[in-house]
C-alpha cells in the first residue's frame, strides 16, 4: 500500500485531478490486450518531463514500482503493473511538438497516437512508416516501448529504424537525451536503440524525434490464391530471395480464410489452402515492373488465381480479408491470442507447415496469419481461458511453436515484445551470460528495480 504521505506528495506533483486511487478507478489500469491482470495501487497522469522526473525520484526513494502505460494495447502484458505500485499514463502528454518536412523529422510527446501523427503528416504528403494494426489507438511511446512493427515494416523497417532521438527520464529522476535530429549520428553509444523495445524497464521516454518520409507516388496490390499451403509459403521465400522488396507480403491459411469468410461473407475461396496479399509502392514505372515480376513468381509457384486491384476501392477490397482477421477470430471465442514468433524468411515454408501440424496435434484452433515477407508469424489462437483443459493445450501448443521457431534460427517475438507472456521462454533464445548482461545494464540504471518490475529482466 502507498503510504498516505507518499500519496499526498504525488498529488502535489501532478495535482489532485491527475492522481487516481479509488478502487473503481485503478481496476481499469490492471490490464492491457494480453490476458494477465494486476491492479496498481494508484494511477498518475503527468503532462511534462519535469513531473515524470519528480515522480520517479520519489518512487526510487520510496521503492515504489512504476509501470509506464500508453494506450494499453500491448499483446504481451508489457503495460500490466505486475508488481502493483504506480501505473504512469502518458495519454495526456500527447502533443505533436514539431514537424519538419525539410529536414524530415517530427518531434512528439510519448502519448501521441500513431494514427493522429499519420493524419498530421498526411496533410504534408508525408508519413511515418511503422504501422501496427493498432495504430488508431496505440501511442508512439508504447510503439517505442515494444519496438512495434506492422505490415509495411517489411520494406521500411520497424520503430527503432525511425527513432532518431529520445528524451528519457531515468529511475533516479535524471533526464537524459540521446541521438539528435540528424540521420547520421555516432556521438557515443547508440542509446536510442537500447530504449527501443525495452518495455519501460530502463527509463521512461518523454520525447521522441522520429524520421519521416514523403508518401510514395504509387502502389499496387494483388491477392494470390493457392490450393496448397507449401506453394503459398514457397512463393514468399522465392519473392524475397530474388531481391524484390514489396511493402507488404501477408499470408493467410485455410483456417483464416474460412473464419474470415464466415464472419464477413466477402466471397473468399473457401477451398483455397493459402492466400498471399502483396503490395508494392514507389515510383509508378518501378511499381509496374516489380508487380509484373511478382505476378510471374506467384504463377510459377502454382497460384491458381491472381486478383489485381486497379482502383483504390479494389485495393481496399483485397485488404478487407486481412484487416478483418483479428475481429473474426475475436468473435469466435472469448479469448484471442496473437502469437508472434519469427523466422528467417527462407524458413517460412517449414515454419508454416510446422505450426499447422502443432495445431492439429493439440486440437487447438489456430489460424496462420503472417507478415510472411519478414518471417513474422502471427498464429491467431481462439480459445476460452476459463476452459482449463483447453487452455493447457493452448499453452503446450504455444511452447512448441516457440521451440520450432528457435530450431529454425528464429526468435520469440518479431514485434509484440516479451512482457509477461514470453518471459519464461527467454532462455530459448538467449544464453545465461546474455541475460546476465541485460540484468547488469538494468541494475546500473535502475538499481532498486522500480521500472516495470516482474517483466523479462
Amino acid at each position, binding site marked *: 500500500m502507498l503510504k498516505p504521505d507518499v500519496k499526498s506528495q504525488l498529488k502535489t506533483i501532478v495535482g489532485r485531478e491527475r492522481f*487516481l486511487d*479509488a*478502487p*473503481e*478507478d485503478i*481496476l*481499469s*489500469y*490492471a*490490464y*492491457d*490486450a494480453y490476458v494477465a491482470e494486476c491492479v496498481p495501487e494508484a*494511477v498518475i*497522469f503527468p503532462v511534462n518531463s519535469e513531473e515524470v522526473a519528480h515522480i520517479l525520484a520519489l518512487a526510487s526513494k520510496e521503492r515504489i514500482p512504476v509501470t509506464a*502505460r500508453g*494506450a*494499453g*494495447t500491448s499483446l504481451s502484458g508489457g503495460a500490466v503493473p505486475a508488481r502493483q505500485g504506480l501505473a504512469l*499514463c502518458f*495519454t*495526456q502528454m*500527447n502533443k505533436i511538438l514539431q514537424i519538419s518536412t525539410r529536414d524530415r523529422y517530427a518531434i512528439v510527446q510519448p*502519448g501521441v*497516437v500513431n*494514427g493522429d501523427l499519420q493524419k498530421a503528416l498526411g496533410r504534408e504528403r508525408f508519413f511515418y512508416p511503422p504501422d501496427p494494426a*493498432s495504430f*488508431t*489507438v*496505440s501511442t508512439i511511446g508504447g510503439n517505442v516501448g515494444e519496438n512495434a512493427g506492422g505490415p509495411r515494416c517489411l520494406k521500411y523497417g520497424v520503430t527503432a529504424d525511425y527513432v532518431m532521438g529520445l528524451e528519457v527520464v531515468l529511475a533516479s529522476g535524471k533526464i537524459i537525451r540521446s541521438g539528435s535530429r540528424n540521420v547520421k549520428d555516432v556521438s557515443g553509444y547508440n542509446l536510442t536503440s537500447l530504449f527501443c523495445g525495452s518495455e519501460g524497464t530502463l527509463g521512461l521516454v518523454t520525447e521522441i524525434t522520429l524520421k519521416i518520409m514523403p508518401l510514395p507516388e504509387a502502389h499496387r496490390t494483388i491477392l494470390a490464391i493457392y490450393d496448397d499451403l507449401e506453394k503459398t509459403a514457397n512463393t514468399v521465400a522465392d519473392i524475397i530471395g530474388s531481391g524484390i522488396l514489396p511493402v507488404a507480403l501477408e499470408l493467410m491459411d485455410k483456417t483464416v480464410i474460412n473464419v474470415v469468410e464466415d464472419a464477413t461473407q466477402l466471397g473468399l475461396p473457401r477451398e483455397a489452402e493459402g492466400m498471399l496479399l502483396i503490395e508494392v509502392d514507389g515510383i509508378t514505372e518501378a511499381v509496374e515492373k516489380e508487380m509484373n515480376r511478382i505476378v510471374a513468381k506467384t504463377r510459377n509457384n502454382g497460384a491458381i488465381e491472381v486478383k489485381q486491384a486497379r482502383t483504390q476501392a479494389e485495393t481496399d477490397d483485397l485488404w478487407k480479408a486481412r484487416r478483418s482477421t*483479428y*475481429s473474426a477470430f*475475436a*468473435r469466435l471465442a*472469448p*479469448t*484471442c491470442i496473437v502469437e508472434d514468433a519469427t523466422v528467417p524468411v527462407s524458413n517460412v515454408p517449414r515454419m508454416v507447415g510446422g505450426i499447422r501440424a502443432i495445431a492439429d496435434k493439440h486440437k487447438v484452433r489456430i489460424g496462420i496469419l503472417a507478415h510472411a515477407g519478414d518471417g513474422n508469424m502471427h498464429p491467431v489462437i481462439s480459445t*476460452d481461458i*476459463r476452459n482449463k483443459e483447453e487452455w493447457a493445450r493452448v499453452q503446450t501448443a504455444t511452447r512448441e511453436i516457440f521451440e520450432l521457431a528457435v530450431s529454425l534460427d528464429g526468435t520469440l517475438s518479431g514485434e509484440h515484445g516479451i512482457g509477461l507472456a514470453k518471459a519464461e521462454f527467454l532462455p530459448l533464445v538467449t544464453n545465461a551470460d546474455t541475460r546476465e548482461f541485460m540484468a547488469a545494464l538494468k541494475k546500473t540504471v535502475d538499481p532498486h528495480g522500480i521500472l516495470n518490475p516482474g517483466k523479462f529482466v
Partner: protein
Amino acid sequence: MEAEEVHRCVKCGLCLVTCPVYQELREESASPRAKVQLIKHYAARDLPTSPHLSELVSRCLMCGSCTANCPSGVRHDSLFRRMRSDLIDDYGENWKKKVLYHFLTHAAQLHWASKFAAFGRNVVLEKIAQEVKIGNIPLKRLPKFNQKPFRDQIADVIEPLGKPRGRVLYFTGCGTNYIYADVGRATVQVLQRMGYRVGIPKDQVCCGLPLFIQGSVSKTKENILKNIALFTRPDIDAVIVDCATCGSALRHEYPAVLADLQTDTREALELSRKVKDIGEFIFDNVEHLQPFLKATASPTIVTYHSPCHLRNAQGVKTHVEQLLEALPPVDYIRSVDFDSCCGGGGTFFYDHPNLSQRIVAKKIENAKATGARLLATGCPGCRVNLAGNLEETDAIEVVHPIQVVELGLKV
C-alpha cells in the same frame, strides 16, 4: 447481474478511438473497455456497488460508437444499460433527473395548459430553472415550448397533394410535439408534396427510450405497448420518424425490451420492419421529390451532424448526406467530425456538464469552419445541445434536415 457478454471483450482497446468521452479525457477509466472491466468485476461480486462506480458507468454518452466498431462484437450499449438499471436499483436516481423524466414521459397524458401551470408551481422544477444553466446549456438558449403541442395543431390525416403514392404514419416524438413544431410542419408538407397520405395517431406517447437509456426498463413497457397498438398496421407503407432516438427505439429497442420481459414480440418486429427515418425515407424515394425542387443560383452552405442514434443504432449512415447533396439549393460541405457524438447523450449534458461542454465546443467549431449557415441534424436532443451552446453572435443556425428539404421546395 448476468453478464456473460463481458467475457467477449478481449481488451484490444480499439474502442478507445471511437469513444468521444475517452477522446476528451484520455483516461482509460473513461473508455468502453474500462466499463466492461468494471461490470465484469461487479458481476463477479468482487467490486461492490458504490456511488463512484455509478458515476463512472454514467460517464457514457450511450452513442453506441463502441458497439458499432467492436472487433469482438461486444454489445456495450445493452450491457451498460443493464448495469445502469442495476445501479438505479441500488441508489435511486438523482432527484432532479427523475423530475425531468417524469415531465417527459407523462407530459402526453396531461393537458398542456395544466402542465404549464404545474411548471410554475412545481418547486422542484423551479429549483432546476434557478440554476440558470440546465446542464451545459444556459437557460436563455433553451428552445421555447410550442404554443400548443404539434399534434393539437394538425389534423390526424393529411391528404396528399397531386398523385397519391402511398400511406404513411407519422410518429412525431416528444421533440417535435412539444418543442420543434417547425419540424412537424416541414415533415408533413414534404411528404404531402411527394404524394403520401400522412396519418398522425393522436394518442401516441413518448417512445420510452429516455427512460430506458437510464435503465428504468419496467417503466417503459406501458408506452411501448400503446405505441405498438397504434402503429402496427398492415395498410401502410412506412412509419416515419423524425427523431433519431425515437427511431432507434421503434426499430430495435421495442422488440429487445419485450423479449427481455418475456412478452410477445411479433407485432414489435412487424412494426420494426416498417420504421424509416424521415431523411432515409425521402432519400430512398427521392425521385418523387425531385420534380418539386427549385433551382437556385446562390445555394446555401449547409453542413450536417450525424446523430449517433441514427448512424450507430439504426445503421442509417449516408442517406441524409446524400439527400442534402441532391438538393439544388444546397451547397453541402461535410464537417471533419460530422460523425462523432455531439456530447449531448440523453441526459449526459445534464450529468456531466463540463465534459459535455468540451465535446460540443469542438463540434461547433468544426461546423462553423465549413462556412455553413445551416447545421442540419435529425435529432432533437442533438439540436437542443448544439443550438444551446452557440454564441449569440454565431451566424450558424441548427435545423432538422427536413427543414432544409422544405427550403428547397418550389412555392
